[in-house]
C-alpha cells in the first residue's frame, strides 16, 4: 500500500513536471516579452528591454524555466504583472471561495444524481425514466452559461426569488452564510453535473440490478428498500467514484463560467480577468493547479474505489 502510494506520487510528480514544461513553453511562445505587457504599448523599446534584462526575461528559455521551478519549490508562484501582488497571495484570497462553491455544487449534484439514477434504473423505460433522460440530454447539450442565463431569466427576472448576482462577500463560507445570494450559481453548477452523473448512475445501477445478488437479496425476504439501500447502492456507486475523480479539475473550469456570469470573486474570475490582462504568471499558476488537481483527482478516485470494492487490487 505504502509502496503503491509512493510510486503513484512519483509518477504524479513526473506528470506535473511535464505539464509545467509544456505550459511554460506555450505561454512563452505567445508572449516572449513580459516587459511589453507590464509597461504597456506606450513604453519605449529601451525601457522594455531594460525591464526584461532586470527581471531575467532575456535569458534562454531553459534557464528561465529552471528559475521558475526553483521558485515554485519555495512556494513562490511569481508576481502578477498587473495586480502588483504575489500570485500565491491572490490565490489564497480566491481559492477558498471557489473550492467551497465547487465542492458544495458537487455534493449537491451527487445528492440529487445518485437517487435519481437509481430511481430511473428501477423504473426503467417508464414515463419518469424517459422524462428524466430527455431533460438530462437537453441540459447536457446546453452550454452552461446558457443554463445560467436561463436560470437568471426564470428565477430572478420572471419570478424574483434569487438575486442575479452572487454575493460579493470575501468570506469563503458565503455559500452557507448567505445561501439566497448563492442559490443561482449553486443550482447552475449542480444542474450541469447532475445530468452527467445521473445518466452514469442509471446505467451502473441497471447493470447491478441484473446481477444475481439482487435476486438473492429478494429471495432472502428483503423488502425492496433494503435491497436497494443495502445491496445495490454501494455497488452501483463505484463507477461514479472514478468519474467524480476525473471531473474534479473540470469543476475548476465550470467555475470559470459560473463565476463570470454571476460575478463571483473566485479563482475562475481571477483567471478570466488575467486572461484579458495577459497576466501570464497568474495563468501559468492556474493551469498548473488544474494539472495537479487532475493527477490528485485520479489518485484519490483509485484509492477510494479500491477501498469500496475489495476485488480491485492496487497495481501498476
Amino acid at each position, binding site marked *: 500500500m505504502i509502496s503503491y502510494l509512493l510510486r503513484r506520487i512519483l509518477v504524479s510528480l513526473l506528470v506535473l513536471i511535464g505539464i509545467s514544461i509544456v505550459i511554460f513553453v506555450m505561454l512563452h511562445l505567445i508572449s516572449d516579452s513580459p516587459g511589453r505587457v507590464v509597461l504597456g504599448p506606450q513604453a519605449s523599446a529601451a525601457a522594455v528591454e531594460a525591464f526584461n534584462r532586470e527581471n531575467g526575461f532575456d535569458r534562454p528559455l531553459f534557464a528561465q524555466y529552471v528559475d521558475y521551478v526553483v521558485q515554485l519549490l519555495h512556494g513562490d508562484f511569481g508576481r502578477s504583472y498587473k495586480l502588483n501582488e504575489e500570485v500565491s497571495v491572490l490565490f489564497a484570497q480566491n481559492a477558498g471561495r471557489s473550492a467551497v462553491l465547487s465542492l458544495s455544487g458537487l455534493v449537491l449534484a451527487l445528492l440529487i444524481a445518485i437517487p435519481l439514477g437509481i430511481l430511473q434504473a428501477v423504473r426503467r423505460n417508464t414515463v419518469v425514466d424517459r422524462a428524466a433522460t430527455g431533460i438530462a440530454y437537453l441540459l447536457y447539450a446546453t452550454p452552461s452559461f446558457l443554463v445560467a442565463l436561463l436560470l437568471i431569466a426564470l428565477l430572478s427576472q420572471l419570478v424574483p426569488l434569487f438575486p442575479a448576482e452572487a454575493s460579493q462577500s470575501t468570506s469563503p463560507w458565503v455559500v452557507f452564510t448567505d445561501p439566497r445570494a448563492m442559490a443561482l450559481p449553486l443550482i447552475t453548477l449542480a444542474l450541469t453535473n447532475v445530468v452527467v452523473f445521473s445518466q452514469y448512475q442509471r446505467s451502473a445501477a441497471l447493470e447491478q440490478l441484473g446481477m444475481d*445478488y439482487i435476486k438473492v*437479496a429478494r429471495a*432472502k425476504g428483503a423488502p425492496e428498500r433494503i435491497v436497494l439501500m443495502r445491496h445495490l447502492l454501494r455497488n452501483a456507486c463505484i463507477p461514479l467514484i472514478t468519474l467524480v475523480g476525473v471531473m474534479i479539475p473540470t469543476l475548476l473550469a465550470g467555475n470559470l463560467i459560473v463565476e463570470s456570469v454571476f460575478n463571483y470573486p473566485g479563482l475562475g474570475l481571477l483567471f478570466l480577468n488575467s486572461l484579458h490582462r495577459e497576466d501570464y504568471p497568474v495563468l501559468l499558476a492556474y493551469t498548473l493547479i488544474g494539472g495537479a488537481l487532475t493527477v490528485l483527482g485520479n489518485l484519490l478516485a483509485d484509492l477510494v474505489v479500491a477501498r469500496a470494492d475489495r476485488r480491485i487490487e492496487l497495481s501498476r
Partner: protein
Amino acid sequence: MLTIRDLSVEIRTGERTVRPITGVDLDLARGETLGIVGETGSGKSMTGLSIMGMLPGGSTITSGSIRFDGQELTGMEPHAYRTLRGRRISMVFQDSLTALNPTKRVGDQVAEPLLLHGLARRSEALRRAEEMLALVGIPRPSERMRDYPHQLSGGMRQRVMIAMALIAEPDLLIADEPTTALDVTIQAEILDLLARLKEQLGMAMILVTHDMGVVARHADRVGVMYAGRLVETGPTRSLFRSTRHRYTRALLDSIPSLEQDRGVELFSIPGSPPDPAEATPGCRFAPRCAAATELCRTERPPLDGEGGHVFACWNPVAGATAVPQGRALPLSPAAATSAEHRLEVIDLVQEHPASGWAPKGRRRTVKAVSGVSFAVRAGETLGLVGESGCGKSSLGRMLVAMDRPTAGEVRLEGAKVSGVRRRELGARRAKLQMMFQDSGAALDPKMTIGTILREPLAIQDVGTAAERTERAIALLDSVGLGPSIMQRYPHELSGGQRQRIGLARALALDPDVLVADEPVSALDVSIRSQVLNLMRTQQRERGLSSVVISHDLSVIRYLSDRVGVMYLGKIVELGATDDVYERPAHPYTAGLLAAVPVADPEAPAPEGVERVRGELPSPLDPPSGCRFRTRCPLATELCATVEPLLESVGTGHDVACHFPLQPKVGEAADARTTGAGADRTETEAAA
C-alpha cells in the same frame, strides 16, 4: 406440502407474448426431492421463480395455483410473501460469483436472513452464520466470516450460498442449477452436501437442472419439462427405467455416456426447441419427434398415467425399447495408423506474472502450463481433460500460436510454430485453426455469416471473391446448414447453428490441425449431440488432426482416440481412450471418472475408488513433488519430495504417479516421453 396446479406464466414485451410456462402441475411432499429437468427455455427456472414469487418484470401468472402448506401463493400480498421468502422457502442460485454481493463480507451475507426476519439479534445471527459455515464444510469458518466473496473459490462460494439459504431452516429449498458452474469433483461434493443437509433439517427440495445425471442420483421424483410444459413426471426409478414420453427417451439417448459404444453415431434429436412466442395446438415436441402423427400436431396430449408416473404423449414409448441404433462411425480413419507426428508439443511451459504489484524478485508467476509434451498423428484426435484451472485452455491457445510459450515449442509437421517471424506464422496459421466455446462471442456481431466464412479465405488470399462465396456455401453444406444463412447475422442464429458456423469457419482454410476448446459446453443436450456427431464426421472425412479440450469426460471419450488428463499444468496420464477410461492408472483420473454423474438411478455407486476431495491448489505455488498429492488418498512422503515422471503402464499408456492403479511395465522410465521438461520443473519447484 407444495401443490402446483395448471400454472401458466406470460411475459409481454410490446407486441410479443411469450409463454415460458403453460399448464404445469407439480406436487412435492415434505422431505422429498423433486428434480425438474429441462433444456434452456423449457421453463424450469421460471417454475422455481414462480414459487418464490420472484418472476422477472413484465411476467405475470395468468392462471393456476401454487399452494404451499395450505396457503395460496399466487396473488399473495407482497408483505406476506416476504415473510415466507428466505425463511420458509429458500433458493440457491447457479452462479455464485454474481449471486454473492461483491462488496459485503461473507459473514454478514449469511447472517442477513436471520436479521431480516427478526429471528435473531446481530451478534447471535453472526454466531449462527459461523456455525452454518462449519456445517456446509467450510474450513476455518471464523476466518472466512470476514472474507469477501472473491477471496473464495467457486466451490466454497457455492457452500456459502447454501449456508445463506439454509440459515433460517426453511421447509423448502429450491436449488436452481446449483452445480452447473462447478467442476465434476466439486459438483459431487456439493450434491452430497445438499442431500445430507436436506435429511438433517428435514426439508423438501426442488433440484432444477439440465443434467439427467444429477437428478438420477439425487432426486426422489423427476419432472421433465419441454418448451414450457411438463411432459413427464414420476418416481426417479420408474421414469428412467420405463420412460414413456418420446422427448424424455430421446433426451436420455442423446447423452454421451461413459459406457456407450463409441463406434456408433450418437443419437441426436433433429431441429431445435420451438419459439416460446409461438402457440401450437398440439404437442410441442411433435416437429422433432420421429413417432409424431397427425394427432400429435393438432391436439395437445393430456398428462396421463398411473402409479404417480404420468406423461403427456399420444404415442408413448412402450416398455423398455432399445436405444435406436445410429450409423456406424469408425473411430479413426486409416491415416491415423501412420506413424507421422503431425503436431508435436515439446516441454511446453507457460508462466505469466500474477496480477498485483510486488517488488522485483518477489514477483509471483502463475504456472499455467509446466512442461507438457505430446504428439498428435495425422488424422488422430487427442482429448485433453481436466478441471478448470488445470491449464488446458492455455495449452490450446499456445497450440494455435495465439499465445507464446515461455519455454518449449510447438511443431507442425516438424517445423516450429512458436517463436517464428510474424509473416511466416501468418502463413502457417492457415494450417492451425481453432473452434471456440462461446460462438456468440467468437463471431463478430457486425458481420454476416457469409462475411465471417469468407474472411479467413480473404486474409490468406485464397481464390477470387466468387470462389470464396462458393467455398463458403460448400462449408455451410458440410456443417448441415443451407446457403440462405449467408445473409444473416450471428445473433439471428440459435446456439447450435452458431457453433456449426464456428466449426465451418475453423474448417474454411482446410487446416491440418483443429483445436476445439470446450466446443459443446455452452449447448443444450439435444443440440450437443448434433454438434458432436458433426465434429466426428468432419474429423474423419477431412483426415484432420484434432485436439479437443473439455472438462466433460463423456464428450472427450466420444470424440477422442487418445486422451491426456491434465492436472495443474501437467499431463498426469496419457493413453488410448479406452485404456484410460477402462483402466485409469492415475488416482486423479479414477477420481474424476467416479465423480461423473450417471444418468441411471440404479447404477451402483463406484466402489473402491476414492473421490477427489478438496480444492485445486493455487497455480501460483503448486505443491512440491507430485502436484496432486494434496488431494490424493494414496499420497506418501515420497510424493511430496520426488516428482513422478510419465511411465508406461501398457502400450502407449503412460502415467505420472508413484503408486499407479495399474502395474507399471518394467521399471525403467520411458525417457522419450518425459525427458528434460519434468526434470527442469522439478528443480524449479525445489528452487
